[in-house]
């Protein structure tokens, strides 16, 4: 058990726990904040992998910008308390908190991931790589040279999605407010 392992365990625990709570938190604001914690945990994992640019971007875009948007979406939308009528067997089976189906699904997924990791593990280098001198430069190179076309296509796709969202949510007879 060395330092990075401890850090990894903490970050992984934080990420997994808050991801679980995103789904199970009874209040939507709590869910949003757990989502932020998840993002932060993932950013920490990126740091551990010495992908510091990715980590920073993860924090900046997801924990910063996306979270702001999520919070605003929560505040601006018409929130109504929804009383869950799922009691009894339905909640036993399906409720994210104590449901059997999500539990089984989660455990199964974890098992699959772990077995996959075990199969693939030997091919992964376990000794630390020499730190990339400037990971930003590599990412930039990859994005703007090797994968320039997919990058641009993706951005066009996102633009189309954004315009589509605006059109879909526009109210009839001009936007009000």
């Amino acid at each position, binding site marked *: 058990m060395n*330092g990075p392992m401890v850090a990894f365990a903490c970050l992984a625990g934080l990420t997994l726990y808050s991801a679980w709570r995103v789904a199970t938190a009874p*209040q939507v*604001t*709590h869910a949003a*904040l757990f989502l*932020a914690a998840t993002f*932060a945990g993932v*950013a920490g994992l990126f740091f551990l992998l010495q992908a*510091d*640019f990715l*980590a*920073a*971007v*993860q*924090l*900046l875009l997801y*924990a*910063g*910008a996306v*979270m*702001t948007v999520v*919070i*605003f979406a929560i*505040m601006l939308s018409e929130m109504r308390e929804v009383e869950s009528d799922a009691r009894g067997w339905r909640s036993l089976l399906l409720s994210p908190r104590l449901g059997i189906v999500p539990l089984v699904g989660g455990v199964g997924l974890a098992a699959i991931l772990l077995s996959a990791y075990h199969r693939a593990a030997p091919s992964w280098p376990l000794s630390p790589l020499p730190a990339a*001198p*400037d*990971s*930003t430069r590599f990412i930039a190179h990859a994005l703007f040279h090797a994968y320039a076309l997919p990058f641009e296509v993706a951005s066009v796709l996102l633009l189309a999605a954004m315009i589509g969202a605006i059109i879909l949510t526009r109210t009839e007879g001009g936007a009000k407010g």
Partner: protein
Amino acid sequence: MNIYLAALLKVVGVLAFVLGNAFILIWAERKISGYMQRRYGPLRVGGPAGLLQSAADILKLMAKEDFVPGGADLWLWWLAPAVALVPAVLVYLVLPIGRSFVLQNLSIGLVFFASVTSFTLIGIFMAGWGSNNKYSLLGAMRAGAQLFSYEIPLILSTIGVVMLTGSLTLQRIVAAQANVWFVVPQIVGFLVFYVASLAELNRTPFDLAEAESELIAGYFTEYSGIRWAMFAVAEYSNLFTTSALAVTLFLGGWRPLPLLAFIPGWVWFVLKTYVLVFVGIWIRWTLPRVRIDQLMDLGWKFLFPVSVANVLVTALVLAVR
């Protein structure tokens, strides 16, 4: 030396600096505002200039009751000051204080700074939501809109510097200012950065999130005692670090003025930072507060286009050269 011990030392050192700095800044703000308002400011505690006023304040705040409002969202309420304080402490990691004096010379120093400070919003939102107070909620929403809007011109205004340097590493940015400080070629960027950073810091004229004449104290209306102090410490720490970043990016960092090179770099760094802090205090005690829609207009309709134009002009100049 053991790296864990080194890390521990760094953390303790930063924390000590943050506290000491807040100590000095709070005293300085009270003293400066006092002189600007034709009064004396603190006088009694700790000698003729009230030097220990902050210590007395902290003692008082620690002795106060840790009041929790009824109906508060306990976890959010408890964690919010800590969440607001963490980014304020983390950013010290990358500040180039002297020629070879930086805690961690990250290659992405600038992005790290921006990303960590963007986390402050979460703390503010937690405080505003967790307090179960409508004024706090309004303050938190204002803070959210404000931080989000001004983050963009803030980051865009630094891009000109990055383009001139070709690096995100703060130490390299300082190194690139050997001949001329970037405030000269990037004067627009500097001004946009300073205005936007005042807005990010929630200081007058942009202190809408805690506008006391409208929202009492905004998101920390309900906080008292040591939790309130944590917000205050975070605020003053942010004031220092943002000014320090402005110094690093535009005012030559630890580089001395000509002929005064015998004074060590870190003194210059701190000195320049304090000058900017002073300007911030000066502005705070001079100007009235803008309104929320005027704030948004300034951010989106003025600072944002200006910073984009600054990036484009810089790129053009670089391409032509």
